[in-house]
């Protein structure tokens, strides 16, 4: 079965980011497919490479990157939500005349159409939020 995951909240502030990760992992362990994880609202903060939690805490961003790499996941950060909150990839950096890019490994920035498409193409959309 094809699952799509929508993450509405950023890491650390809300458990939603943790729950979404645990659920995604469990979906994969059950042998289902994750067709996309879409990060929206403050959820885009799951995809910034600048996150530096204390050593004794989980690194939520790296955790996504690693899971993404292992399972070839499509981790998509919404471009409009990301621009509002200061998350840019190299293309957006140049387009908007910014001095740096900060998209984390394994994530890509794309449009809201990716969320709608996930709703169409997946068998289940599961939303994690506040």
């Amino acid at each position: 079965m094809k699952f799509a995951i929508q993450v509405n909240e950023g890491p650390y502030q809300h458990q939603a980011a943790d729950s979404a990760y645990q659920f995604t992992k469990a979906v994969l362990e059950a042998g289902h497919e994750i067709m996309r994880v879409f990060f929206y609202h403050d959820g885009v903060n799951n995809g910034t490479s600048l996150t530096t939690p204390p050593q004794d805490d989980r690194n939520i961003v790296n955790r996504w990157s690693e899971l993404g790499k292992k399972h070839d996941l499509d981790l998509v950060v919404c471009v409009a939500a990301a621009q509002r909150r200061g998350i840019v990839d190299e293309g957006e950096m140049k387009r908007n005349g910014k001095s740096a890019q900060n998209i984390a490994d394994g994530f890509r920035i794309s449009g809201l159409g990716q969320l709608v498409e996930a709703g169409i193409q997946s068998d289940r959309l599961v939303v994690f939020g506040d």
Partner: protein
Amino acid sequence: MSEQIKKFMYINRRAPYGTIYAWESLEVVLIGAAFDQDVSLAFMDDGVYQLIKGQDTSEVDMKNFSPTYQALGDYDVTKLFVEKESLEERGLTLEDLMPLTYEDEDDDWAEKASIRLVSRAELADILEQQDVIFSF
């Protein structure tokens, strides 16, 4: 699979301005309209506050996105279900909401109301028929 038309329901349960959920949810609806799905919106709990008329954000310097609801009809988003009980609990009636309309191409472009007042039980039945539920 990708060719089939799904019933998409966007659930709105939050008030505008206090958080960005209502506005960013509306952005998804606008983008989603291009995908030709069978789209409905539900307004329940504090979500009904999104449709209140006379919103004026000039003194809080925030974007007033309420005119966008009126544009939904042009995007063929014409089913806005408003839960009656949520209105009543908040001391509101249809008169307090923006008069949203669309032009029905199947009925000689007659102007019709987009807002459909439904009871909680009716909305529960409508939700039951949906394929995908978007929550923000």
